[in-house]
């Protein structure tokens, strides 16, 4: 058991293998995997498998709770019965998540859990999972978290916050879930001193300076109140209409539900959807309120920076930069924000 300390606890880096070994007794662990240089989250059994100095994984971790393809139920009209698919639930730990991804999960919680009815599939996975966050010491050039209300040390969504100091980790439990993790592990730690906190603050400050704040986001949001803004046409011109930005986004959460029926029986399956697709909101009549790329791109930007603010009080962009990195025509959401903000 790790005792609770006011300033957090210090774990020597050399004890990381012990920490992971101890955690694996209670939890399944997923973390940035060394196998592909921290490009993806994979099951971790030993600390050597972890690539904790990673930038950001390629795909976001949203698929842990909200998989791209998910069977909801199976049915057979012969016996008039439907069988619900229950997600396999085990105590799970997402270890070494970046603060932006943790914040994104807290947003998804609002979507799937804050209103009745809650989403039972999401809930079961989410409730079984705890998040250990690792603050960023060296953000990537595509990171813009500080512009959208996140940051290299953002704590929201995390159960435990970890900071990498020189040769040790500073760890702090932020939630009852985090405290529970501490009670479940057996590894030697020391109480953090105020000197450690100074060192941490210094690293966080440095990281914040590395993330460029490039625009007054409020001015941009204000402009979005003009739904018919003249800028959409031009911004959407080069967009190819693929789904990369939405599928890589840690907060995009639109889904479709389809019945796959073969003769008498079938399954109901939920899959990711994307506002960039022609089938998104296509009415049965054939009418589509978002007939072209302009309307679809507007939907994507408005949902993140306008509708979500109205519904949940949050901007549904955490500044992870995945959409910037992977867009095949180099559409940069930072540029979109600047262009709209500066439009007179």
């Amino acid at each position, binding site marked *: 058991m790790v005792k609770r300390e006011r300033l957090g606890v210090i774990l020597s880096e050399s004890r990381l293998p012990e920490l992971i070994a101890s955690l694996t007794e209670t939890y399944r662990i997923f973390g940035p995997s060394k196998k592909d240089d921290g490009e993806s989250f994979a099951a971790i059994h030993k600390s050597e498998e972890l690539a904790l100095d990673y930038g950001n994984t390629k795909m976001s971790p949203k698929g842990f709770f909200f998989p*791209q393809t998910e069977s909801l139920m199976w049915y057979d009209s012969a016996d008039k019965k439907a069988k619900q698919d229950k997600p396999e639930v085990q105590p799970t730990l997402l270890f070494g998540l970046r603060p932006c991804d943790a914040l994104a999960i807290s947003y998804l919680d609002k979507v799937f859990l804050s209103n009745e009815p809650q989403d039972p599939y999401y809930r079961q996975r989410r409730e079984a999972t705890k998040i250990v966050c690792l603050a960023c010491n060296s953000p990537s050039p595509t990171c813009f978290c500080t512009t959208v209300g996140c940051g290299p040390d953002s704590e929201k969504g995390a159960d435990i916050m970890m900071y990498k100091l020189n040769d040790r980790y500073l760890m702090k439990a932020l939630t009852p879930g985090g405290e529970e993790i501490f009670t479940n592990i057996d590894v030697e730690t020391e109480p953090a001193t105020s000197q450690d906190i100074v060192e941490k603050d210094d690293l966080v400050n440095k990281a914040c300076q590395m993330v460029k704040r490039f625009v007054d986001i409020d001015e941009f949001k204000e402009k979005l109140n003009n739904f018919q803004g003249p800028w959409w046409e*031009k911004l959407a011109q*080069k967009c190819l209409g*693929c789904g*990369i930005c939405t599928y890589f986004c840690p907060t995009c959460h639109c889904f479709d539900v389809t019945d*796959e029926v073969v003769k008498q029986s079938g399954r109901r399956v939920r899959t990711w959807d994307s506002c960039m697709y*022609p089938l998104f909101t296509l009415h049965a009549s054939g009418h589509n309120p978002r007939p072209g790329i302009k309307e679809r791109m507007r939907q994507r930007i408005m949902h993140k920076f306008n509708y979500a603010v109205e519904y949940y009080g949050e901007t549904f962009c955490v500044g992870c930069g995945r959409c910037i990195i992977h867009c095949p*025509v180099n559409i940069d959401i930072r540029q979109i924000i600047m262009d709209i903000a500066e439009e007179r």
Partner: protein
Amino acid sequence: MKRAEHEIRSNVGKLLKQKKIDVFIGYEKGTLPLRTSPCFVSSEKEARKLIWNSFCTNNLAVYLPHIMSRVKNKRSTRVGIICKGCDSRSLVELIKEKQLTRDQIYIIGISCSGMVDYKRILSQVNSDEVIGVDETADEITVRSKEGERVFSKEENLCEPCRTCKHAVPTVYDMLIRTAQQPRQATTSDSTVHDFLMKPREERWQILEQELGQCIRCYACRNACPNCYCKECFAEQTKPRWFGVTTDLTDIIFYHTIRIFHQAGRCVDCGACVRACPMNINLRLFTRMLVDEVKERFGYEPGVAPEELQPLATYSAKDKQDFMIEPE
């Protein structure tokens, strides 16, 4: 490169000023190092942002069917576009398929010395540290916080450029020559041959491995100039041809059908591969079609504007050995 860039800017500026074209599609500086971005230019002033370098990889022909379907006055609208060899071959096919007419477009062709694969270079440096990029005739210099590193262009070319035999556009109104020689590939692509030499189980395994990574973002389709269908089979619901999931059967179905639709049309520009965020080697499959069509019909898509597409015509000389008796 710089001279070509200057020529592009001044010519596009002139064309727009003289109202010979209404809009020009070219490349502008990207927001990330080693990237460029397609751009639409409609004034002489805007033409100054056009650039030309070894990272102008996007096949811009992809925008034309969409633009043409939207313009109100089809007769009087004229779109300018910059074309590498592969892009011009795409245009030739689009014209053959009556998605455009030749007089609707003004083509600035550029003799291409091969495009550089930015992903390949980024995989060799710490991509987070890159500050800037310089380029000479044969080399790319990447400046980063760790210092400078020089890469040979030849070793880091995009895959299709290695075996490209038509680097000079096959159709153009004006041709700009860069300082470098247009690339003339001497080797032919052995990808398909190597693949076919493998035992069946291994081939299936490769197919599973490659396509198994697909996330169905449809970037391959949307980046492809040939994929201009107003309604793609992947999105038809009455009937729905295949499932919506990321199960392997659905993914394989999607790619197989999309790629088959490219028979006799694929110009091997590699736009699908470059757009794929999962780095799936789609060319393994499209190459097969290209080779097959060439072997059976002696046809290379996009090369000869007057030649009819093999699947849109019939010749008594067509090989018929593919018709086999059921066993």
